């Protein structure tokens, strides 16, 4: 039986893993390669590394972190942040990523999704969407959540899927870092609208939140960062609780 994935996310800034609340107030959480390995050993089904303040100066730092993390990582590894063109994606794949995540660049140029998919396969292209509830409508934000785009999340997710995306990484900006639970309404709406897997992100705080987003939100995978870094809950414990609640997970692993 296909299991629900628990994905550990590392937000990286200047070569260090950090975690903020609602995309702000960053705290240091360690070395990316060490964090990636520790999460994999702990039972993470996948690792995502996001360069959250990606600038051209940070490129080398990111590729170096990807290379070091990939060396002894034998679970799927997704890398995002600052990928603006096919060549950026190729460099990240070359450094050892299995999938890339693109966000703002895909919105500016949806055909980029298809260009990367054509060369590396759809399974390697994750389109990340940051959305916020604005007057009852889920609006997409670009540039790390700083710029409103006026786009509607469900419609953009469908378009991305049609362009060749292999998965959608859907972050609720309202819930990000708050540990108050996933936005099941947002996740379910997108999950039902697209035929590709949806990874829910933003708001993980307890095992109950994961159970809810898998059952009510119909998520295929769920991603969390802050709860794992600071030892509030480890992945092994989370998976045991999901298993006990009859959510299919890779356990034991």
């Amino acid at each position, binding site marked *: 039986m296909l299991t629900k994935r628990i994905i550990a996310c590392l937000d990286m800034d200047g070569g260090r893993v950090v975690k903020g609340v609602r995309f702000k107030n960053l705290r240091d959480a360690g070395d990316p390669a060490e964090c990636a390995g520790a999460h994999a050993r702990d039972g993470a089904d996948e690792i995502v590394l996001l360069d959250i303040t990606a600038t051209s100066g940070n490129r080398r730092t990111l590729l170096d972190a990807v290379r070091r993390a990939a060396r*002894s990582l034998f679970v799927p590894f997704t890398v995002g942040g600052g990928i603006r063109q096919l060549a950026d994606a190729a460099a990240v794949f070359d450094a050892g990523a299995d999938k890339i995540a693109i966000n703002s660049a895909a919105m500016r140029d949806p055909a980029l999704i298809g260009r990367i998919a054509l060369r590396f396969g759809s399974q390697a292209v994750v389109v990340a969407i940051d959305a916020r509830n604005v007057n009852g409508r889920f609006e997409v934000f670009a540039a790390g959540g700083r710029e409103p785009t006026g786009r509607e999340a469900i419609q953009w997710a469908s378009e991305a899927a049609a362009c060749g995306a292999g998965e959608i990484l859907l972050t609720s900006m309202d819930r990000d870092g708050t540990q108050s639970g996933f936005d099941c309404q947002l996740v379910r709406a997108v999950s039902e609208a697209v035929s590709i897997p949806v990874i829910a992100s933003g708001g993980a705080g307890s095992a109950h939140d994961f159970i809810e987003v898998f059952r009510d939100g119909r998520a295929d995978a769920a991603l969390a960062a802050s709860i794992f870094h600071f030892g509030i809950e480890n992945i092994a414990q989370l998976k045991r609780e999901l298993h006990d609640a009859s959510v299919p997970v890779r356990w034991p*692993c």
Partner: protein
Amino acid sequence: MIAIVNYGAGNLNSVKKAFDYIGADVAVTAQPETVASADKIVLPGVGHFSSLQALDRTGLREALLQSASAGNPFLGICLGMQWLFEGSEECIEVAGASILPGKCRHFPSSVKTPHVGWNSLAVQEGSRLLRGIAQDSFVYYTHSFYAPIATETAAASEYGLRFAGAVERDTIFGVQFHPEKSGDVGLSILKNFCEV
């Protein structure tokens, strides 16, 4: 030496890295001569079935078939396993190796595609490739087309229907999942292949 065949499809680095990690002597090659002289062959691949056409154009197809029929162990991964069959609905113009019977088909519309994630294996007794792999072990899949269950099926998984997760006939092996991305279970499978 184990030759990892580079025909331009997908990310070979991760496959090479996994073999390096378990201490195997591997080389990534696009040369039919290198393939012909290798002790064992790994045909990886992700993406579209049409990319297998490159094997026909480059002379790799003949080298692979000759080596495999001479009894050199062969491991196809993902698209590389699908190549062992007659062909795929994904691209009917490109022929598979027809070493195994049947064609690869798209998953039914009742399930989301691609099939992405960790799924469990129902392991057939006596498989050499899956020696020591516990029943219901989890492996990582990412694909939209599947190979049919046949007498050569070494392990089956379920997603909308039962499909071949691993195949095995004599020294010819194939896995639809990605052993290089399947944690310790995957590394054990690659070790088994090295020891065949």
